[in-house]
Structure formats: C-alpha cells, structure tokens
C-alpha cells in the first residue's frame, strides 16, 4: 500500500534542503494526479429478479493514480474499485434497464459486500423506454489494501432483465480520491 505523500513541515528559520523540496514536490504531484477511475460496461448484463447484482465494468476511460497501478481491473473482479491509497473516496455512477413497467429499479453502493447507508435509489420504470438512472453520490473510507466498492443494480421485474449498454446509455462507475483521512 503506497502512502499518501504529506507536505513537509518547515519551521521559521529552517533552510529547506533537497529532501524537503522532494517531499513538497511529491505532495503536489499526488494532489495534481490523485487516484481516479471512470469505468464503463460496454455489453449488456442480464440481471436476475429480486436480488442486487454487482455491475461489471469491462472498459476503462481512466484508471489513474500517482504510481500508475490504478484501482480497477478489466480482467479480474471487474465490478470492483479497490483503491490502493488509504483515504476517503467518492463514488458516482449510473445504469439503465431494458424497458418494462413491472416492479422497481434500484442502484446502490456496497463496500466489501455490504450496502452503504444512504447509498441507494429506487425508481419506478417505464414500459415505453429504457430508463437510465443515476446513483447517489457517496463517500466511503477505504483502507488502501482490501477494501473495495461496487455499484449494484436491482430490479423486481419478475424474471431476468438486462441492463442497457448502448453508447451514452452505458453503465458507468466513477471513483475519486477526496482526502487522506
């Protein structure tokens, strides 16, 4: 787990040496390119009825952090954002569902497989169009090692129902580092 660089303390009378300047440079560089990922689903995902399902994201628009490793994989655990820098992260996202008027549609955030309080939306669907919903914006504390966040989708259509994955309608998840503690 990499550390979040801290700005060095320089007391009155101190003459900053090379180490201090390097620490300052590292701190500025971190905040100028803080961890951030925006991922999308480019194919539909069939969802069973009456259960939340973690959305899979097979494409990355961005998955950047200062040491270049990133928090998302397109080959393993593709539903997860697993930040490597400890701190507070904001999650945002959205997804759409195939047309159907039965039941409810929901999106929620989960951390480590448990739903986040205040992280859920429910909307009535429409039969004549493919409704696209935005999730709540939530902030979660991540430990930088094992913690992960997922965007999960729900429907109570009564039988399987697919997400929508056409260009601008594609499900997406955006995770942004906000603060170090």
């Amino acid at each position, binding site marked *: 787990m990499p550390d979040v660089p801290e700005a060095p303390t320089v007391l009155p009378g101190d003459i900053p040496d090379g180490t201090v300047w390097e620490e300052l440079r590292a701190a500025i560089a971190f905040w100028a390119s803080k961890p951030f990922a925006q991922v999308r689903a480019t194919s539909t995902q069939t969802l*069973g009825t009456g*259960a*939340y399902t973690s959305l899979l994201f097979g494409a990355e628009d961005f998955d950047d952090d200062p040491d270049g490793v990133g928090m998302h994989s397109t080959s393993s655990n593709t539903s997860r954002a697993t930040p490597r820098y400890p701190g507070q992260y904001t999650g945002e996202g959205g997804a759409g569902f195939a047309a159907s008027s039965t039941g409810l549609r929901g999106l929620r955030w989960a951390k*480590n*497989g448990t739903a986040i309080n205040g992280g859920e939306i429910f909307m009535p669907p429409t039969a004549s169009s493919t409704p696209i919903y935005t999730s709540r914006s939530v902030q979660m504390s991540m430990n930088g090692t094992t913690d992960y966040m997922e965007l999960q989708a729900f429907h109570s259509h*009564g*039988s399987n129902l697919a997400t929508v994955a056409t260009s601008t309608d594609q499900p997406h998840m955006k995770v942004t580092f906000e603060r170090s503690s």
Partner: protein
Amino acid sequence: MSELNWWLIVQTPAGVWAWDCGEDYEAAIDMELHNAARVIGGFVEHDDPRRWIDEGYDIQLSRGTPHPTLLRRATVGTAADLAAVDRDAVGRHAAGRAEFYRGQRLAAAVDALGALDAQGRQELAAILNAGGPGGPGGARE
C-alpha cells in the same frame, strides 16, 4: 477460489451466508438457485427491497471472492449445497414470490387504468375483448 466466480450472498437477522456459484453467470442468476439460498437464510418471500432494509434482509450476487471480513462472518457453501435444499420448501418460497409479482402487476394495471379517460377505457375494452395484448389465450410476460 477463482476471482471470476460468482458469489450469492444472503444477509438476514439470523446470519450471513455466502455460496460460491462458479464462473457460469447464467447459472448464477438462476431463480431456483436464488430461491434455495433464500430458503436457507429464512428470507422473506417478497421482493420489495424498500422493506428488506427495515426487516434486516439482503441478497446480492457479486463477482470474486467476498471480502475476508464478510467471509469470516458467513456460513460458506457452494451451488451444490443449494441444489440439495428441500425442493418442496423451495417450491413454496417460489410460489410466495410469484404471488408478490402477481400483486405487483395487478397494482401497476390498476394504476394505469386510473389514468385512462373514457375513450382510453373503451379502447382497452376492445383490446381485452380481442384476447388481450398477448392475443387470444392470455397475458404475455
């Protein structure tokens, strides 16, 4: 345990369960499998998650080995354990869910009816007299 496996996770007031359902997604979303998991967990029969929260229930399907903290709390099993659940109990649970969905469809139809004007009701009557939207023989899914 493969990171590509799907896990069915049920959380209820009675405990937490996590079943490794393998890599086959179509198999993992099978309603029979979910009904068996819900029976083991003593899950409520309805599918209204707005009430789940208050009643302490949750069911989710997630890819990859669950977080170690969740796994430590959970009773861990596989799809084979779900296949061994008493079929009669699973059938009763499935019937309860089907009744919930029937009620939902009826409520949606009543809402839609309430929004129709006189002309709309006449047109709807003509559709029903012709056998309904699914044609002669009944409703469509």
